[in-house]
C-alpha cells in the first residue's frame, strides 16, 4: 500500500499494489454516481419497510402502512363509484316521465343502461338487443306488453311469468293441440288462417275454416282482428314479426303446445336506478313508444271485438 505514486502518462494516482509489473490506476467513481447509488440503497430499504416485500411461511410482511394492491383497487373503485354517484342520484331523483326532458341526464341514463344491458340482458336478447327465436327483438316497434317507458319499466321490474311476484306480467296460452282442445285438423286450419293474415299463404278453404276456429278459441286474447292484446301479452298475429317462427311447422308447434316465455323480475336483483336506466336504454333503441302513454290499438277491450269477430267468423 505504500507504493502509491502518480502514473506518468495519465497523471492519475495508482492504487499502490503491483502484480508482475501491472499496476492499477485509482479512478474513483464520480461523486454524483456514488450519491445516486447510496440514495437508491436508502430508497430500497425504506421501500421494504413501507411496502409489503418480505415473504414468510404463511404470509408476507405487511409494510408499516398496511398497503395492499387489493386495497388500492377497492379505494379506486370506491372513488369511481363516488364519481358516478352524482349522476346516479340525479337519475334516482328524476321520475321516469320527466327524464326524457332532461337531455343531458337522459343521454347519461342511456349510456348507463347500455352498460347494464351488456351485463344482464345480452344472454337472451343479444348484444344488439335484436333477440332471437323465442327472445323478443327490442329494436322493433312490436311490443307484447307495451313499449312506453313505464311499460318497459314495469316489465323489467316484475318480469314475465315470475312466480312470487304479484305484479309480474302473467298470461298463459292453452296448449290447444296437446290438451285435446282442438283436433289436429282444426289446428291445421287455424294455422292456415293465421298465416294468411300476414300474407304468408293465400286464403284457402282451410283458412276459411280456420277463421271460425280462431273466432271460437283465440279472439279473447288475440283480438277479433288478430292484432293481439297487450293486457295478456298476446302477440299481433297479423304482422310480419314472429317470435317463435312463421313457418307452418313453427306455428303448428305453437298452437299445439303453446309457448310461455319468461323473463326474470329484475326488481329483486338490480337497484332501482339501474332498472330505470335499462328501461330508458331499451326505449331508446328505436321502437320506444311515446313517453306519454298512448292508447294502443292492440289493447282494445276484448268483448266488443270478440262479438264482431264471432259474427265475422261464422260460416
Amino acid at each position, binding site marked *: 500500500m505504500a507504493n502509491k505514486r502518480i502514473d506518468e502518462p495519465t497523471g492519475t494516482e495508482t492504487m499502490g499494489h503491483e502484480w508482475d509489473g501491472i499496476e492499477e490506476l485509482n479512478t474513483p467513481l464520480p461523486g454524483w454516481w456514488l450519491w445516486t447509488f447510496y440514495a437508491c440503497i436508502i430508497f430500497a430499504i425504506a421501500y421494504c419497510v413501507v411496502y409489503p416485500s418480505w415473504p414468510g411461511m404463511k404470509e408476507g410482511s405487511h409494510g408499516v402502512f398496511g398497503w395492499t394492491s387489493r386495497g388500492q383497487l377497492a379505494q379506486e373503485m370506491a372513488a369511481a363509484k363516488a364519481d358516478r354517484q352524482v349522476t346516479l342520484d340525479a337519475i334516482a331523483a328524476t321520475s321516469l316521465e320527466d327524464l326524457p326532458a332532461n337531455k343531458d341526464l337522459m343521454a347519461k341514463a342511456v349510456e348507463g343502461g347500455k352498460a347494464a344491458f351488456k351485463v344482464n340482458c345480452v344472454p337472451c336478447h*343479444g348484444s*344488439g338487443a335484436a333477440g332471437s327465436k323465442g327472445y323478443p327483438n327490442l329494436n*322493433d*316497434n312490436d311490443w307484447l306488453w307495451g313499449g312506453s317507458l313505464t311499460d318497459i319499466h314495469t316489465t323489467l321490474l316484475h318480469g314475465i311469468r315470475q312466480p312470487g311476484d304479484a305484479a309480474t306480467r302473467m298470461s298463459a296460452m292453452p296448449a290447444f293441440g296437446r290438451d285435446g282442445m282442438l283436433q289436429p285438423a282444426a289446428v291445421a286450419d287455424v294455422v292456415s288462417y293465421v298465416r294468411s293474415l300476414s300474407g304468408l299463404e293465400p286464403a284457402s278453404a282451410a283458412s276459411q275454416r280456420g277463421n271460425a276456429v280462431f273466432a271460437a278459441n283465440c279472439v279473447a286474447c288475440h283480438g277479433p282482428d288478430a292484432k293481439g292484446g297487450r293486457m295478456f301479452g298476446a302477440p299481433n298475429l297479423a304482422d*310480419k*314479426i314472429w317470435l317463435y317462427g312463421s313457418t307452418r311447422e313453427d306455428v303448428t308447434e305453437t298452437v299445439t303446445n303453446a309457448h310461455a316465455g319468461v323473463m326474470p323480475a329484475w326488481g329483486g336483483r338490480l337497484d332501482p336506478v339501474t332498472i330505470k336506466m335499462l328501461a330508458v336504454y331499451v326505449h331508446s333503441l*328505436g*321502437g320506444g313508444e311515446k313517453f306519454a302513454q298512448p292508447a294502443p290499438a292492440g289493447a282494445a277491450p276484448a268483448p266488443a271485438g270478440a262479438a264482431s269477430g264471432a259474427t265475422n267468423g261464422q260460416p
Partner: protein
Amino acid sequence: MVNLDPKGQPNAGQPKAAPQGLHEARKAVFPRQIDGKFRRLKWAIMAFCLAVYYITPWLRWHRGPYSPDQAVLIDLAHRRFYMFSIEIWPQEFYFVAGLLIMAGIGLFLITSAVGRAWCGYACPQTVWTDLFQHVDRWIDGDRNAQFRLAKQPWNVEKITKRLSKWTVYLLISFSTGGAWILYFADAPTLFGDFFAGKAASIAYSTVFVLTCTTLWLGAFMREQVCIYMCPWPRVQSAMLDEKSLIVTYKDWRGEPRGKKAAPGAAPLGDCVDCGLCTAVCPTGIDIREGPQLGCITCALCIDACDQVMVKTGRPRGLIDYATLEDAEREKAGQPATAHAKLIWHPRTLVYLGVWSAIGLGLLFMLGTRQHISVAVSKDRNPPYMLLSAGEVRNAYAVRWKNMEGRPRKMELSLDGVPGAKMWAEDMPMASASGKIIRIVPADSTDPVRVYVLAPPTTTGEHKVTFTLRALDADGGSVSYAARFDAPEAQP
C-alpha cells in the same frame, strides 16, 4: 456545471497540458456594447418580437356570444384554435401543419437569400440572450467592468450586483413563461386567477418549467445553444455555399494587421488589430479567422469595425456582409456586387415558389372550406331491423357539425333508397319524412341517432348518400356516403 468565472478557463499558455477533457469548458463571453446600423436593426427586431409575444394574447376579437373573444387562442380544453377571423377545429389541423411546413421552408428561403439572418436577428435564443446580455451591461457595466466583477472577491458590491442581476433574470424568465400560458386560456381571466392562486395546476407547472428553461438557456447556456445544441446551424452550414451572404473579414485588405508597421517592414493592412470585433461578438468568436459555425451573422462586428475605420480615416466595410464568390471577385480587384442583387439567385426563387404555392394553397382551402360537416356511422348490430308492418329500418349515428359561432338551421336528406323516410331519435316514428330539419347549436357537434325506414319490398344492400344542407342565407352543403342494409331478396 457551467463556470461563468474566467478563472475557470483552461489556460492555454501553460506549458504542461492538463489531461484532455471530454468537453471544452465554456469560455465566458462578455460582449461589449456597440452602436451602429445593425445594432439598431437588432433593437428594432427584438422590440418587435417581444411585443408580438407579450401583446398578442391581450388582443381581443369579437366573435359573437358563443365564442371566446381572444384574438389568438389555443383552446385545448374545447379543441379549438382561434386566430383572428379564422377558427380551426381538430380535423382541420392540417392548416397548422401547413403553417409549420411554411415556417420550415421559410427558414430555407431566408437562409438562401440572406444567410443566417434568422440566427442573427429573430431566433428566440438570440433575442433572449441579447436581452440577458443587456441586463448584464445595465447592472454590472460594460465588458471591462464585467471582467473585473467576475474576478473580484465576494464583497458587498459584487453580492448586491449579482443579487439584483439574478432578480432581473428571474423576472424576465418568469414573464416569458407567464406569457406563454396566456395563449391557452382567456388572458385577463387567467392573469387574475394566476395571481389569486386559482388557476389550474397545469398553469403553474407550465410557468415553472418555462421559467426554469428560460433562465437556463438565457443566463447559463447562451451562445452554447447555437454552437452545441441547436441543429439548425449544422443544417445551415450544409446549405450555405459560395453564393450565400455571410459576415466576411476582408483579409486581403486587412492583413497584415497591426498597430504600427515595424520600421523597414512591409506596410500594414487596414486592420489595426484593436480587437473590437472580438469584444462585441455575442458568441465570443474572432471573425478574422474566417467563416465559422459560431458566427450567427448578427453583424455587430461590422458595426464595431466600421466605427474604427471611420475613426482611423479608412473606408468602411473591412468586415462586411459578402458572399464567398463576391469576396473572390473583390480580392481580384473587381467591384463588389450590390447586396440587393446577391439575394436573387435561382435557389431563392425556387424556395420562394414552393413557399408561396403552399401559402396560396392554404389560403384557397381556407377560403373554400365548409363551415358545416356531417359524419355518419351505421349501426352494425343489428344491421337492419324488420318492423311490424314489414318495413326495413336502419339506424345511424349522425354527427351534425356547425362550425360557426351562431346556431344554424340544417336539413339532412338521404339518397339511394327509393321511398325511404327518416326520423330522429327524439321524434315519433309517425313524423318520419324524407328529411330532418334541426337547429344545430353554435360552434358544436350535435350527435343525433337517425332512423331510416324503407318500404317492405326493399331488399339487398344499398349505397346511400346523406346530405346536410344549411338552410340559412349562407347555405353550404356536405355529403357522406354510407350503406343501407335490407334482407336478401328471396328467390
